[in-house]
């Protein structure tokens, strides 16, 4: 199946906002806060995912004068200057996801939401039934939902009908680093929804895998673990940025069709007699 999408614009459009970078990066699991900030800078990402957790300590510790962990992170991430995309990580029911979404909207002062409703612990596969239901509720309540979904075409259609303008199918299970488990399904999604913003979210382990997704015509890549857990997260963030840009440029350039047999690249017309009709 050949993607029929028109060449993407040079900016990434997300719910009416334009962004230069097509790399969305997660903020978890970095060796240190400084490396997190350096990796975000090296990635060139305009958008960073964040989350909500129970606040264990007091707002300000009266003994040490230090902010709580939550406030320290809040101060840190604001230094990045990135637009924040809060998630509902860990939610397993529609009720949990919807209430977490409201808490995120109030705390981060954004209608953007990376909606996760997890259905299975081993693969962290989305519960697509709960996902569609939660998306319907949240879109009706004014959220701008970025659903973390599978590569299922029918689910994608229902998420769009629910009001989502962006879809985020997985490449493979979160944190697995397996890349694109089903390129055919991702290609089919691209072909069936040529005007929808599609972002591969989860499972990317290598820059080449990110480039592969972009070569399929995807609009952007969201990843976290592959950068945060790399030996040198800052260098890896830069590598992913280059790969995503390369893949996007390649898609716009129009790739050749693969073929089974050789096709000489050197013109055969006028070849010396000893070359016959073959040659490189």
């Amino acid at each position, binding site marked *: 199946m050949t993607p029929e999408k028109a060449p993407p614009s040079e900016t990434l459009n997300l719910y009416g906002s334009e962004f230069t970078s097509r790399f969305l990066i997660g903020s978890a699991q970095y060796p240190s806060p400084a490396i997190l900030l350096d990796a975000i800078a090296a990635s060139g990402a305009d958008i960073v995912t964040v989350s909500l957790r129970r606040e264990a300590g007091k707002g300000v510790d009266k003994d040490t004068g230090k902010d709580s962990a*939550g406030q320290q992170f809040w101060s840190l991430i604001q230094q990045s200057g990135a637009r924040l995309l809060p998630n509902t990580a860990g939610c397993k029911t529609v*009720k949990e996801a919807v209430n977490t979404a409201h808490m995120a909207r*109030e705390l981060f002062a954004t209608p953007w939401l990376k909606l996760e409703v997890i259905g299975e612990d081993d693969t962290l596969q989305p519960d697509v039934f709960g996902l569609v239901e939660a998306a319907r509720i949240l879109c009706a309540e004014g959220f701008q939902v970025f659903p973390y979904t599978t590569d299922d075409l029918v689910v994608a259609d229902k998420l769009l009908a629910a009001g989502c303008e962006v879809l985020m199918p997985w490449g493979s299970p979160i944190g697995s680093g397996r890349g694109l488990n089903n390129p055919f399904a991702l290609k089919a999604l691209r072909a069936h929804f040529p005007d929808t913003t599609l972002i591969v979210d989860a499972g990317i382990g290598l820059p080449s895998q990110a480039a592969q997704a972009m070569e399929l015509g995807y609009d952007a890549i969201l990843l976290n673990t592959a950068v945060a857990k790399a030996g040198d997260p800052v260098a890896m963030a830069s590598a992913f940025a280059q790969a995503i840009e390369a893949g996007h440029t390649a898609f716009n350039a129009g790739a050749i069709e693969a073929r089974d047999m050789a096709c000489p690249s050197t013109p055969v017309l006028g070849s010396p007699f000893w070359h016959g009709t073959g040659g490189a």
Partner: protein
Amino acid sequence: MKIHLNGASLDTEHNDLAALVAALGHEADKVATAIDGLFVARSDRAQTPLREGCAIEILAPMEGG
């Protein structure tokens, strides 16, 4: 009154959610709250009474993927 705060048991004398949040040292706009799994907006905390055995969640920004 005994309540559950972020999964742990807590004795409190405060009658509403806003008072509890303040007593814990949180600035009102730096945390988000829920009671018994339902979101409570910042503007509604003062009108939200605490009840014996209720489960309070106080959440803050954290890293995420």
